[in-house]
């Protein structure tokens, strides 16, 4: 296939709304999640986590629980298998993976022991009873811009840029916005807790695990335990949400492998709800300052975006808050800098729309503030600054349909009638406001392999190590394979969710479908070639390099209407509308469901989500769904999503990612609507009622 393909025209399965292929199994309880897999001779591990934020383990009194009913034993730093310090992930070696290797406690909630028992209840009872003595050391979990430990963030991506003369352009601007925005620690909060079951079959390590990419995690696990990759197999049939927290080799898997190795039988480790909060990846807090200068007609002269985020000394990470700033609007001068502040916290990792979600909150709030000061329609301000090429990169856009999203959304939402002055609309005692945000999320593909076998009965077995997090990947890939092979979906037998199926990218970075679809279409092209082989395998690694450099992004415009009760300061979202340009839509039913889910995530980010730490102990105060709020049904009364025609020429089927774009703009749209309702800016998320309350 050419790197820049033409728009596919054949009518087929792609573009047709179809329910999930596994839908019936899920609603009837037949679908097996990781903790459901029946395994004979299973033992259960219960994790013990640190109740201090920094220090050392002085003693773990194993003898005190060894004789409790059903207890098989305890693994801690004194008897755990040694792990390879080179093991890591995208950002390099990760000390967060090196569990039970020494007595050091780098953060609260760090796993420090695993109690293994015959039943989950017995293991859990002993874990609760296990006496641990700590040497408590002073800790620092207090994040803020300008923290003395701050240092330039890794420049693996979202590195600093400085185009044009920002200072001169700001000085020449008629209006300058200079404001600071903050977002708190946030947790992925997937419904399904992380669970892994591990056992040895001869020389081969087998595991069933809740994760976003079995192949990549098998590679990490093999490195961690110093095994050749072919001796590790990981399966993951159904996943109850990941949101980034299952993108890595999780503590449940590492500890289950340790226990299976030590006790010579299958061991299942399922995190408790609080352990999911304490020990699996979170979004770091961010603290951002944005300066935007514009002429009186609204044309931008400069954007200066500096952002700080927290991380752990154990692992590198980038919360790329400034990425959008480099591509969303035309401005002759753009400068960005990212600062990382190492603190005594769990290593943060990618959580839904990493970087873009907090970054767009800051950028799109600042744009709204600029419109306010210019006394201009915020929609018009955005239209006026539409770039022709990447404002920093100078590269052409592969396809850019933000304007269509904005215009179509504005029509549908009734934006034209809006009085742009704040605090002008009341319904009964309630203040009513509307707001919008524009946004983008980068799109692309990572190397993957896929195989196709033509079966004697005329069907095709399509094999790719993809994962379906509940988004409908199975259903989408089935349609893609059917069209690529020019057969009906009933002829496709899809196998996914197994590291043995070959190298593949994970369900993450909004690149799952694009990466897997590319491998499938390549394999299908070979299958349909003149030699008509019975089995083909394709690897896209070499093709990715041939893709021309372009600005490749999905786009959206999000419109929100909120009410604020001036007496109680309760903020409720009454309407949310998102217009999306996500390339070709594979399955409108599931794509809509996914972007609406993303918008609900953005709503939760705007109003609810906040990981709270005790200011004295540094420990999490709300590691459960009672304390860590996400939107309930009553919080999302009217939410709609539509897609504008769009096509990504560089990727097969013209797809872009739909995984994260739904999330990105929503928080700013809501914050802007709250300003429009009340006249007061909300620059710190979440928009809690105490922050809105008027005396």
């Amino acid at each position, binding site marked *: 296939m050419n790197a820049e393909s033409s728009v596919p025209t054949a009518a087929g399965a792609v573009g047709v709304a179809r329910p999930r292929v596994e839908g019936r199994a899920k609603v009837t309880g037949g679908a097996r999640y990781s903790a459901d897999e029946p395994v004979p001779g299973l033992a259960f591990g219960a994790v013990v986590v640190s*109740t201090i934020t920094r220090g050392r383990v002085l003693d773990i009194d194993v003898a005190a629980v060894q004789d409790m009913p059903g207890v098989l034993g305890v693994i801690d730093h004194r008897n755990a298998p040694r792990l390879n310090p080179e093991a890591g992930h995208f950002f390099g070696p990760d000390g967060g993976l090196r569990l039970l290797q020494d007595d050091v406690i780098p953060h609260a909630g760090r796993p420090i022991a695993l109690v293994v028992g015959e039943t989950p*209840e017995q293991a*859990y*009872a002993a874990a*609760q009873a296990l006496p641990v003595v700590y040497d408590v050391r002073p800790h620092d979990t207090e994040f803020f811009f300008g923290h003395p430990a701050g240092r330039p963030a890794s420049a693996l991506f979202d590195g600093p840029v400085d185009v044009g003369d920002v200072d001169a352009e700001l000085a020449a601007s008629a209006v300058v916005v200079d404001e600071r925005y903050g977002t708190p620690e946030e947790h992925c909060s997937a419904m399904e807790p992380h669970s892994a079951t591990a056992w040895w079959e001869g020389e081969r390590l087998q595991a069933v695990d809740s994760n976003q990419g079995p192949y990549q995690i098998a590679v990490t696990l093999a490195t961690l335990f110093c095994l050749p990759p072919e001796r590790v197999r990981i399966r993951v049939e159904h996943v109850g949400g990941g949101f980034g927290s299952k993108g890595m080799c999780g503590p449940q898997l590492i500890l289950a492998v340790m226990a299976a190795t030590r006790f010579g039988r299958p061991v299942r480790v399922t995190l408790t709800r609080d352990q999911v909060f304490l020990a699996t990846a979170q979004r770091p807090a961010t603290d951002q300052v944005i300066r935007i200068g514009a002429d009186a007609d609204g044309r931008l002269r400069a954007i200066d975006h500096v952002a700080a985020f927290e991380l752990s000394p154990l692992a590198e990470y980038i919360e790329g808050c400034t990425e959008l700033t480099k591509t969303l609007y035309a401005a002759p001068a753009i400068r960005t800098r990212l600062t990382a502040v190492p603190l005594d916290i769990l290593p943060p990792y990618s959580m839904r729309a990493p970087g873009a979600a907090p970054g767009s909150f800051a950028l799109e709030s600042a744009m709204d503030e600029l419109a306010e000061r210019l006394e201009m329609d915020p929609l018009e301000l955005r239209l006026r600054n539409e770039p022709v090429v990447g404002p920093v990169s100078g590269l052409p856009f592969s396809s850019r349909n933000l304007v269509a999203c904005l215009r179509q959304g504005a029509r549908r939402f009734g934006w034209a009638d809006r009085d742009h002055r704040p605090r002008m609309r009341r319904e009964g*005692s309630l203040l009513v406001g509307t707001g919008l945000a524009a946004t983008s999320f980068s799109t692309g593909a990572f190397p993957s392999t896929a195989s196709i076998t033509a079966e004697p009965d005329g069907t095709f077995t399509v094999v790719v190590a993809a994962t379906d997090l509940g988004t409908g990947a199975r259903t989408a890939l089935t349609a893609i394979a059917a069209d690529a092979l020019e057969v009906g979906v009933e002829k496709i037998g899809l196998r996914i969710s197994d590291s043995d199926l070959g190298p593949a990218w994970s369900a993450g970075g909004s690149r799952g479908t694009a990466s897997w679809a590319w491998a499938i279409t390549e394999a299908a092209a070979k299958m349909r070639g003149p030699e008509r082989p019975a089995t083909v395998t394709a690897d896209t690694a070499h093709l990715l390099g041939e893709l021309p450099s372009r600005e490749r992004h999905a786009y959206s415009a999000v419109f929100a209407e909120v009410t604020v009760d001036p*007496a*109680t*300061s*309760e903020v*409720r979202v009454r309407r949310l509308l998102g217009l999306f340009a996500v390339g070709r839509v594979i399955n409108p039913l599931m794509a809509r469901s996914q972007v609406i889910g993303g918008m609900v995530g953005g709503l939760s980010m705007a*109003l*609810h989500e906040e990981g*709270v*730490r*005790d*200011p*004295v*102990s540094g*420990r999490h*105060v*709300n590691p459960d769904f*009672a*304390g860590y*709020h996400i*939107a*309930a*049904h*009553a*919080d999302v009364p009217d939410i709609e999503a539509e897609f504008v025609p769009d096509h990504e020429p560089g990727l097969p089927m013209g797809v872009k990612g739909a995984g994260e774009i739904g999330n990105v703009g929503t928080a700013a749209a809501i914050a802007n609507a709250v300003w429009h309702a009340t006249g007061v800016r909300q620059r710190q998320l979440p928009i*809690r*009622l*105490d922050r809105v*309350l008027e*005396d």
Partner: protein
Amino acid sequence: MKEFAYQRASGISEALRLAAGNDDVRYLGGGTNLVDLMKAGVESPTRLVDVRFLPLDGIRQVPGGGLEIGATTTNSDLAAHPEVRRRYPALSQAVLAGASGQLRNMATVAGNLLQRTRCSYFADPSQPCNKRAPGSGCSAIAGAHHNHAVLSWSPHCVATNPSDMAVALAAFDAVVRYETLDGAGDIPLEEFYLPVGDTPERETALPPGALITAVRLPESAISPLSRYRKVRERASYAFATVSIAADLDIRDGVVRSSRIALGGVASRPWRARTAESLLLDGPATADRFRTAAEAELAAAEPLPGNAYKVTLARNLIVAVLTDLAASPY
């Protein structure tokens, strides 16, 4: 989870005998709070005496016009009862403002009265908490206390009572009825929850081993226009930041009587007696409501993280009383 004995009581006297003389016994109603606490290791009873199937459910008329609500009546049945909705609508509204449909179907009236605070330090056995482990200290006072008490707390505990139902019961002068092996007794709801003092672990005035049998609502409190309003961070499935149960009796523009109780501000439902007495026989105006609210809240001692609750409680009192005053009589 520690092993425990489970026994289903066949009658009140058997339940009382099974619980007698043993601090480690708990009565089990719907279990919607107790079982969670047992899983978390906060409660570890040696025996559960299941009283859910005792003949203590149902709501019946009391001579004179009041209602008696059986202890094991579910929250759902309480909220849906036509006479509760007609005579004490704020009670029905309060119950419906709490938890979820599934929980309300399980939870009992007595269990609701005895539910424990949702202070996160209380719920985590690895944290100091005087209510759970007397003498270990209060983590919330110097810690995260955004949703904690502003009235009548002590240096030993700053937790709030989480019940919505109890706030309405406080406004309606409810009386809690109980049985012990030594006989029956009554406690007015306003005296049911003990002051925090230096014993936050002692939450109610119930004698040891007592079993709540009913809650009685007096005829004098019938308030067909009463209202419950719950302020919370999300639209459902959240405990109150501040809540209010209120009723006003206005004739010719003058307040003849009022009932005001607040939730989310103290270790117990807070009957706003100061505000009520200030409003009595005065004009029903927003200014007066505000003056009364401020007088009530003058005793508030907020912590740095929850001072907003004082403003919020004041605003809420004024808003709800203003609404009530504007309602057609």
